[in-house]
């Protein structure tokens, strides 16, 4: 076996351990929830309707049986892993008997689509401006642009998103503000649909980019001002290598290395969804699903989403570690 393969295998073992620990913690915390999915269901059923107390007691019993909520928490824990081994996350308790996987898979592509694209754009944009601002320290335009992004950073996301919405959806209504596509759209794949989906993603993506770029920018700027004094940069400058080339191939290329780990983390983090984006822009996705699952005490759904996110983050970090020798040739894996 090559040393690299051994490294990958060991690293994979670590990945499994982290997933195991993370899911275990999430399992027990979710089961602490005081919301009983059965009571939640009864609440939904009796909402503004009939409520013969005797009938409700009967309903309670039959639902408890139906949802398979018997057994100690340890049995349920064991059961959970056994089921998970076959890729089954069990039925959702708030949308019984629909499988958790079905529910998640319905929203997931939207979350991934929006978040992955905007995370990447944010990453590129933030780092590009950060690198430029770190290298050309005196340029006023860059200073101003960085300042704007840095000032956007602490603005509560909810407000920023809402202001965008008011501007582009009300004061100057040019962009759609609700949903992932037009209401009553024909959902057969067509060019028009794709265009419509893109149009609907502009505002959510823009809001994510505007609040997100600042932190990449700050990080990159600091990294660049460190790298800039490294010997190989000075040497290249003395060697008369053109400035643009120095910035791209020497400074940015080296400063990017630590940023990739951050990128992996945020790409992994997209499996958390973004509740506020989904609420403000009515964008489909798993963030809202998560909140409603928590509200409904639907711990099998919460756990499913939690596990997804844990695997997502851990896998992203795993992948970046495994790929790191490619990004930074100095990292040795022997």
């Amino acid at each position, binding site marked *: 076996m090559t040393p690299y393969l051994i490294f990958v295998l060991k690293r994979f073992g670590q990945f499994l351990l982290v997933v195991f620990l993370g899911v275990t913690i999430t399992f027990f915390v979710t089961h602490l929830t005081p919301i009983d999915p059965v009571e939640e269901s009864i609440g939904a059923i009796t909402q503004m309707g009939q409520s013969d107390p005797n*009938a409700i007691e009967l309903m309670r019993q039959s639902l408890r049986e139906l949802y398979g909520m018997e057994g100690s928490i340890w049995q349920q824990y064991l059961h959970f892993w056994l089921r998970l081994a076959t890729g089954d996350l069990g039925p959702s308790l708030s949308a019984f008997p629909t499988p958790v996987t079905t529910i998640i898979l319905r929203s997931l592509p939207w979350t991934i689509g929006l978040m992955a694209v905007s995370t990447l754009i944010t990453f590129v944009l933030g780092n590009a401006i950060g690198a430029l601002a770190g290298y050309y320290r005196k340029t006023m335009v860059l200073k101003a642009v960085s300042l704007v992004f840095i000032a956007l950073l602490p603005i509560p996301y909810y407000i920023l998103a809402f202001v965008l919405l008011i501007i582009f959806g009300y004061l100057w209504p040019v962009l759609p503000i609700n949903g992932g596509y037009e209401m009553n759209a024909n959902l057969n794949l067509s060019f028009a649909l794709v265009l419509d989906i893109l149009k609907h993603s502009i505002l959510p993506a823009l809001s994510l980019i505007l609040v997100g770029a600042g932190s990449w920018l700050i990080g990159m700027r600091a990294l660049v001002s460190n790298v800039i004094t490294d010997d190989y940069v000075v040497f290249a400058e003395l060697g008369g290598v053109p400035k643009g080339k120095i910035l791209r191939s020497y400074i940015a290329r080296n400063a990017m290395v630590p940023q990739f780990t951050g990128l992996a983390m945020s790409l992994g983090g997209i499996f958390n969804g973004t509740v506020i984006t989904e609420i403000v822009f009515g964008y489909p996705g798993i963030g809202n699903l998560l909140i409603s699952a928590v509200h409904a005490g639907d711990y099998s759904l919460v756990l499913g989403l939690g596990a997804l996110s844990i695997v997502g983050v851990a896998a992203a970090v795993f992948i970046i570690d495994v790929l790191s020798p490619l990004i930074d040739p100095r990292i040795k894996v022997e």
Partner: protein
Amino acid sequence: EDYTSLPRKETLIVENPEGTIKNPGWFNIWVNGGGGVSTGLQQLTMDTLWYIDPEQGLGGATWDNSLAADKPQYNADFTEMTVKLRKGLFWSDGAEFTADDVVYTVKTQMDHPGMIWSAAFSVQVASVEATDPYTVVFKLKKPNARFHSIFTVRWNGAWIMPKHVFEKVADPLRYDFANPVSLGAYKLKAYDPQGKWYTWEKRDDWQRSSLARFGEPAPKYVTYTDPGPPDKRTIAQLEHNLDIIHDNTPEGMFTLKEKSKTIETWFPGFPFAHPDPTLPAVIFNTQNPPFDNADVRWALALLIDIKAVDMASYRGTATLSALGVPPTAATMKDYQEPMQDWLKNFEIDTGKSKIKPYDPTVGQQIADLLRKQPKFKDQIPSDPQAISNAFGYGWWKPNPKAAGELLEKAGFKKSGGKWMTPDGQPFKIRITVEGDTRSVFTRAGTLIAQQWAAFGIDAKAVPTEKLWQVALQPGDFQVAIAWSVETWGGDPDLSFFLDSWHSQFVAKKGEVQPPRNWQRWSNPELDKIIESIRGISADDPKGLELGKDYLKLVAREMPTIPLMSYNVFTSMDTTYWTGYPTIKDPYTDPVPNWANSRLMMVKLKPAQPK
């Protein structure tokens, strides 16, 4: 088909207050499977035997025989109910609706615990059979004069299942009922797999549905959608992209009124909102001291300045009630108005003095107060009857002195500006409020807490998500802002909520309380009233008198402090449709998640020619 929206002029767009539907493809309304209900499913495609309208109803009566041809027929001891069905009604797939469907509905649910009405049928029904294709006979396990209410739509009811569809299904509990077969005037056209919208299309054979009795529904399409948080609904309606907003913040309503020329509301002026037949109140957990003491409860009531609460919560748009029924529709004339004299003379004994706590002029005062704000001046009614309809008849006068006396009577002491309980502890109250979900009541709770705190009580409002499940059901609260009173709206019979207030249903401390009577209050006098109501038929005029007895009892005992009706800020845009229900033509509740709102479809008129 093109990638285009439906013709806007033929489409009615309605807010679905359930928001985004978690399991959008689930249409089996008989199983709680994460699908939507107010998506149009229950309003436009479901039907059952009878409806009671929360307002006045069409055809001159709040009572409507929908699938049934007539009112329910009981035998003398209320152990048997016979239903005659209408003829000539068809499911949207062409099958005829018959008694078999009704029998199937009841039997299937009884056979499948976990279905929504399963328990209710199991507890009551001994047998059900179709004696002929249009007659169903229920035999009951024990006498019940209101068994029919399970098939009577207030907000919803036990919907009738299509036997010909479900009998082919292996397990009705796990069947999603995709492509739902409709018994209403509309059928499913399309829905968003992400659960954001549902669109229904008028049936070609709409005439074969029960709604046809009232005429042809106007909108060809009806879309129920999740328009997002209140501010976005406001924007959408200002842009004429949303015909009916289900609910809004008071401020959102003011903004709409100010900025839009095409907005119609229940009241043309203040308080705009529709008072739903629900009674938000300060609910005490009467099983725990000191709230087991009526004097303490009364003292706390006398510390509330309802005008401030109104301004803080509804910003003046509340319809107040001092009585234990919501100040809406039928109850206005059946209870609120007739009880006024009694209220004016009603006395309580503080131990040191006797006072008359009622202030019949509160509505008037609020109107005067609002009229001072230039923005609203013209929108405030001045006719006394209109004021009473809009703002309620009156409420309790703040009386800190009497409150102090009552507390002292209950053994409390004041020391260093702080009230101490009889056992010497600081009097500490936590008011559980619902937080964001019903922000208006959260606002009310914080203000009441402030008023109590100003009197020397350590009072604070604490928001809890899932107030009902987390606090009310397990009885894990001291005081909450919520409601335990709901009425039919269009019918004075109080059994709808009152029956479950019987002491037989009050849970022990620490155990889960069945819905309603969250205050866990038991009272022998109340039990007697409830038992008397059970013994008479729903439309027996004696019911009204028993209802008044109940009102007097709870006024004396104050197990909850009734505040106001649940005012819903429904607004309707007249750009594409007119003919919405309003106080001038109150044919039904405009709040569109009520199944009764199907009546709107036949009353609407396109605002612009096609």
